[in-house]
């Protein structure tokens, strides 16, 4: 699909739309993943962009951050010290993980970009934590007003919630069609579509989504003989396009995912009734897809993964774990056990910023495809 090919430029140049915004005098505010309510930035009139992993090798950044930090952390410190984030008018450091907090603590010292820090509790328990979260979000709102030089009105936030909910709804429609018509979208296209939502003006993206949906409605599935797969993990940044290509080249059609640059990003909407700031804060406690940065029994990633994989018609699961991602590493033994008990074939793939060789990964994925074939036969 031509429009999606155009969006794939974002893999190598994630801030192309942000530069366009700057060129016409607009403001751009970077946001660290995963759950910050972007609606608040959009309501300020600035373009919200989720900071991304660069495709460049980490070089200058190595003098500032140790190699046992995750790819997203190292990549962003590297980009910052190279001056590649200087176009940002501000960064919202949304603290849900110490690696991101630490990396952007370094960014805040190594650049002149104003940083707005927001702390989040590692819990789903809104009753216990909403009183802590709300004043912090209010302070963030005030700081954003200082960045853009105008007050953020309640109607701005309500409008923003509506725009975002519509975008998420349409993304879920695309997700549904990919499930119903396996192979209709390549994995790298689907990911580029979600990544674009994190990086470009929402209305523009929503218009693209409508066109994509219209084409997909007419398209037919073409996944005969392919193993239907559910991709899981990569909690806060995209999967390398080379890796998703490799997965498909092994004879796989991706029919579902819980990736951050995937369904995790658009799973939950913000309620449109009640106080809009409370609604924005409340979404953190109801993210739609369980997030392993939070503890407690309320959100069980294992349960979710099994039910989502089965619902999508997937015959197997590939767990994509970015090296050094603590929330995912700690969950892995449990996910492995639960998938095994559920009789769902799976494999585990560790990803890195600089992938030395894809061959080991290819063998593992091919082995999974063979297992699925044996189960089918």
């Amino acid at each position, binding site marked *: 699909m031509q429009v999606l090919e155009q969006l794939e430029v974002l893999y190598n140049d994630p801030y192309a739309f942000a530069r366009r915004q700057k060129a016409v005098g607009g403001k751009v505010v970077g946001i660290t993943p995963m759950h910050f309510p972007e609606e608040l930035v959009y309501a300020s009139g600035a373009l919200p962009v989720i900071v991304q992993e660069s495709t460049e090798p980490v070089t200058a950044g190595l*003098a*500032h*951050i*140790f190699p*046992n*930090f995750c790819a997203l952390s190292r990549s962003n410190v590297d980009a910052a010290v190279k001056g590649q984030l200087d176009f940002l008018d501000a960064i919202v450091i949304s*603290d*849900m*993980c*110490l*690696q991101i*907090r*630490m990396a952007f*603590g*370094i960014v805040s*010292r190594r650049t002149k970009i104003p940083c707005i*820090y927001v*702390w989040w*509790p*590692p*819990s789903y328990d809104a009753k*216990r934590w909403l009183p*802590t979260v709300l004043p912090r979000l209010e302070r963030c709102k005030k700081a954003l007003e200082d960045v853009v030089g105008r007050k953020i009105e309640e109607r701005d936030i309500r409008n923003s919630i509506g725009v975002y909910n519509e975008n998420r709804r349409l993304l879920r429609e695309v997700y549904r069609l990919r499930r119903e018509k396996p192979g209709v979208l390549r994995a790298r296209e689907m990911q580029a579509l979600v990544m674009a939502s994190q990086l470009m003006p929402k209305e523009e993206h929503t218009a693209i989504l409508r066109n994509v949906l219209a084409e997909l409605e007419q398209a037919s599935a073409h996944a005969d003989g392919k193993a239907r797969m559910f991709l899981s993990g990569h909690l806060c940044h995209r999967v390398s396009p080379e890796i998703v290509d490799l997965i498909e080249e092994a004879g796989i059609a991706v029919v579902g995912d819980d990736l951050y640059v995937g369904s995790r990003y658009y799973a939950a909407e913000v309620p449109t009734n009640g106080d809009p700031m409370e609604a924005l804060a409340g979404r953190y406690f109801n993210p739609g897809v369980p997030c*392993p*940065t*939070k*503890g*407690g*029994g309320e959100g069980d990633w294992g349960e979710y993964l099994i039910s989502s994989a089965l619902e999508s018609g997937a015959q197997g699961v590939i767990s994509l774990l970015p*090296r*050094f991602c*603590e*929330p995912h*590493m*700690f*969950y*892995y*033994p*449990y996910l*492995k*056990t639960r998938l095994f008990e559920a009789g769902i074939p799976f494999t585990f793939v560790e990803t890195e910023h600089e992938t030395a060789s894809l061959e080991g990964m290819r063998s593992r994925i091919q082995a999974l495809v063979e297992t699925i074939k044996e189960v089918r036969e």
Partner: protein
Amino acid sequence: MEAREVKRLASISQIGKVTDAFYDELRHAPENGKKVAWCGGYPTTFPILRAMDIAYLFEDVYAATAAARHKESKLQQVSADAGYLPEICSYARTTLGAAYFPEAEKAGADPYYLMPKPDFLIYADIGCSMLTSWSDAGRRHFKTPMFAVVTPYVWTKADEQDSIHDLTRQYGELVTFLEDMTHRRLDWDRLRQVMANVKEAITYRIGAMETAGRAVPSPVTFFDWAASIGGVNYAIGTPLGVELFRNINTEVEQRVARKEGALPEERVRLYWEGHMCWPYMRWWGDTLADLGVNIIAAKYTHGHFFHRPDLIDPAKPLESLAANSVTHLSYSIDLLAEEIMRLCRDYSIDAILCHYTRTCRIFPGPFFEVLDTVSRKLGIPGTFFEGDVADASFFAPEQARTRVEALVETVLARKADVAQA
């Protein structure tokens, strides 16, 4: 080379016995009708547990003690067999090894591996989000309730009171959680007495460290301070804890009065930045003594474990616990660098040695920035070596020795230049 004789504090030797007695009592807690909590992160929840007669396993220190006693590799193998990757915090992997320890291997196993199962889990996160993932893994394994006390990170100094206020609320909620778990009410008078003991013990502890840090030569090595943490973790809030730290303080004061240094010759005074290197503590003690190096202060020992006795008011236990839950790990890099510079100035530090812990991110995260700031503002050099808190496989002794030797040479050359000028 013959290791130079280091004068260890005699009063520290009591801690080994206290440690053994603690684990012995813990192992028998269920049969004595006590509830057992497994606690991660930080010991500020312990006074409440003690006041409610709840036995606890401090997961971090269980792992540290295992590593210091070279019992960690079996436990780490058990957690690896369960699927926990080697890049995970080695404290977590060690304690999860105790959680997953195979029933079939329990007969005849080292008693240290046989900890009673928890009735519930508690963790106190003072800045390390990994603790949520770790405790939640324990919760899934044991299928028990879990409660978190989490310090809102202090990005600017203005956030500090806000964090303490929020933590006070959280400690109140912890009391409710524990009352639900035990079906007993907390005796607040008892908690106030425990807090009075905490304040007295910690006042001695911090006082002893300050006295020793200001003395030249220092009468104590870092390794005694590290060992003394056992007194906090295993005896905090008890009369025994008070006695332990009173004895340490008295011994330090006596040594200072006699101008007695811990090393035969104190040539260089270091600040240790980062976590401990528990499997190699003896090696470090011997190596540094050979070089005439004494570590005078460290973030781990001086910035943690009830580091603010002045903020403990026994009449306000929850507020006191909250105030002591904001530590160096809760601070932004700017605030942390200020704290480290204060210690460097107060204790006449010559250089900084950073321990890049391979499986820990919260401690080494700010190293480069801290070294840069301290070097620019105070002219103090620094270096780092690679190792780990509890996984010996990440440490290469000769590489570490070379790094320290180079740092010592730099410091001595500078001192010589200053003397000549």
